[in-house]
């Protein structure tokens, strides 16, 4: 684990005591004693950063927290989603007891704070004890949360990079640019939802369930990806009415009307021929109606077809589509989408096990998205 202490008083006992009392590991804490040094050190990734509010004499002569070195560093660390320490938990270590200053730091992304005891503050023994124990609890929690955050953030960032470098989105066409921006925004929103702070009230009384809600947000990205891989001009008109055909950008079809027949592309057989469901034109069957007249087509069908259209071979298609199948099953049973009968009849809405599973499914789903964006589009 890599910890950084940004504090001009680092060498005057703070590095040592934090290692001994909080981290419980000697020589585990690197230090930066001024703004410039800190700026250099935050260019590499840390597991937890301890940040002092004021690092220089100048900081004591300015009235506004905006100008404090610590605040400027915080803004730098949290500047962009792709900043290397964007997901790193930050604990503010300050001698200031001005709650409005601490509030401002909280608004801008610290994960916890510790007030250095000052002789002017009336700390009785109990408060003093609680002050340390609170810091220890925050640290303990943030070690675990920090690892989770880094794992998810790394995946999210990889997806964003893939979207940015994907040839389909490297275009001046407004529609595709819009799709790209929506994917990136949903990634950030899903990350936010997954890790947003929950109060005890929200957890215990209001049953806040970050993991499940973030899964739904991430899942919805498939809508954008499906459209992004589709040749829009040949699939929708200017009023967003779908033509009978749905054509992917690589020339493959999802839905094709040909010779009075409708073909649905759900992959190829071992000979390399398309496995196509086909229906006679003007068939009045439900399935026919589903693909021809209904303007809303199941997202899972869109995805299966996209996977079929873009897989290099059957093996790849089988592998990816089986991943998708598992995720799709989980998604269908999610209480906020459909919910399974067994869930509805036997389980509480929120259980620790369900939360754990939902978190894992978020990771699995992000990996799946990453895979889709890496499909061969040539």
């Amino acid at each position, binding site marked *: 684990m890599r910890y950084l202490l940004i504090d001009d008083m680092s060498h005057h006992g703070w590095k040592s005591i934090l290692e001994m009392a909080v981290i419980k590991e000697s020589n585990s804490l690197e230090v930066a004693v001024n703004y410039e040094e800190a700026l250099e050190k935050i260019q590499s990734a840390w597991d937890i950063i301890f940040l002092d509010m004021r690092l220089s004499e100048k900081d004591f002569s300015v009235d506004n927290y905006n100008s404090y070195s610590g605040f400027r560093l915080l803004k730098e660390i949290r500047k962009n989603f792709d900043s290397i320490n964007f997901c790193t938990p930050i604990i503010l270590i300050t001698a200031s007891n001005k709650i409005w200053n601490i509030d401002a730091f909280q608004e801008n992304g610290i994960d916890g704070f510790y007030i250095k005891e000052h002789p002017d503050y009336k700390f009785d023994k109990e408060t*003093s004890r609680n002050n340390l124990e609170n810091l220890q609890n925050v640290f303990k929690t943030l070690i675990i949360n920090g690892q989770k955050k880094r794992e998810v953030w790394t995946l999210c960032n990889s997806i964003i990079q893939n979207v940015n470098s994907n040839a389909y989105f490297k275009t001046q066409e407004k529609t595709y640019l819009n799709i790209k921006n929506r994917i990136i925004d949903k990634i950030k929103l899903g990350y936010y939802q997954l890790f947003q702070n929950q109060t005890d009230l929200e957890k215990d009384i209001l049953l806040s369930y970050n993991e499940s809600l973030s899964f739904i947000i991430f899942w919805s990205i498939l809508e954008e990806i499906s459209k992004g891989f589709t040749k829009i001009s040949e699939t929708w008109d200017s009023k967003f009415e779908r033509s009978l055909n749905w054509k992917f950008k690589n020339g493959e079809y999802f839905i094709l009307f040909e010779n009075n027949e409708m073909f649905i592309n759900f992959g190829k057989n071992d000979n390399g021929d398309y496995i196509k469901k086909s229906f006679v034109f003007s068939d009045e069957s439900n399935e026919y109606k589903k693909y021809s007249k209904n303007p809303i087509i199941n997202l899972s069908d869109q995805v299966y077809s996209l996977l079929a259209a873009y897989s290099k071979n059957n093996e790849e298609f089988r592998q990816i589509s089986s991943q998708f199948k598992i995720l799709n099953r989980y998604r269908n049973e999610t209480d906020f989408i459909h919910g399974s009968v067994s869930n509805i009849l036997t389980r509480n809405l929120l259980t620790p096990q369900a939360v754990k599973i939902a978190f894992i499914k978020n990771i699995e789903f992000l990996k799946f998205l990453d895979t889709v964006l890496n499909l061969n589009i040539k």
Partner: protein
Amino acid sequence: MIYLFDDKKNRQVSYGWTAEKFGTYNNYVTIIYKYDEIRDDVSRKKIFSPENLILFHESFFDADFNRHFKETIDIRRELYEFAQDNPTFSIVFFSGSKSSRMLKKNIAYLPVSILYQNLEIFLDNSINGVFDLKYLLYGNSPNIEKNLVEKLLHSNSSLLNSHSPFSLNDNLKVLIATTASSDRLPRIVIGADYKMSLSGERDLDIHNLIMSNLNDQEYDKIFIPLCFGYSLSDFNGLRLAAHIRCTSSINQCKPIFIYSFIELEEIINHDYFNVLKTENVKLINYSIEAFNEAIISKSTSLTFNQLSFEMSKLDLQVPKDYEDNHSVANEWGVYQMARNANIDISEVTGFDKDKLTSIYFKWLITKNRLDLPISSDQKKAQKSYAELLPGIKVLGKIDLSKFTK
């Protein structure tokens, strides 16, 4: 020319020395905030010229932006030696950790508060042709020390001429602390222990003196002088009384009598005056009658609960070295974290151990009963935390397969 070395503008402002005020003394004072300003040889040659005065904050080279290849202590020693070898050149060392004043020819030491308090008087006199460091040390009363010494000599001779020394009752154990100076209190109480030889004014010196003199023999009563050290007008006896109360020893709670040859009103504004408002600390006259009266008076030791309460009356202010690199406030934060984590403070690297001997630190500890160990419940909680943490750390990257199982 006067060169003022102080890396903290805020400190100057907090004592009323704004850029505007310094501006009125532009022709006489050059302020150096950063080492970079004097790195070149020309600047240094200019500074170290005869007739110049350096006012040097002891922590100047401790600031991270002023890091020097030499140790701060060596720089101070070299400055001292330079001044010794060049009598027309003067140097004044000041800092927040100093609590008394000292002047030896062209070399002076004083607290930061005194420096900025008296700087204007000193500069005005210098501009008018009276260059005398005593103005810097004693403000408008440059002769106060001379007057006090005269008063002391007079008091000593009156004391000896008034009554004969008297003997102690066999059962009583009395300590009479005296100064190291030849003008110390004559031996007027036969059978008392005359000890301590007070001379050093630093908290560390006083602390060590208490540790070595008040830990072997338990006394019924302790007498200490109001005036000792280089500057009698620092009234160090008040601080010594506070030190005795805040130093763990077998005599910590014993009755203290501060003998004084000056009047009460002269010390009423002293930072440690409130020690006289605490139980069992009394100011007595510089007379044999007063000593006799104090010795036969009924007085008992304080209990530790009383001690904590009495010390809260002292109401000491956070020392004004709050922005120094070794500020008390920051050291206090480290101390409190170590205490609550049940860690021996002496094991904390970078913590200035001398702070534990400073009266302010000792006072906080005594007043808040922090000399007592933390509760067993708290110790247990700390042990559990330490045991739990390595478990978390070895997890490394979260193994998701564990969850699916």
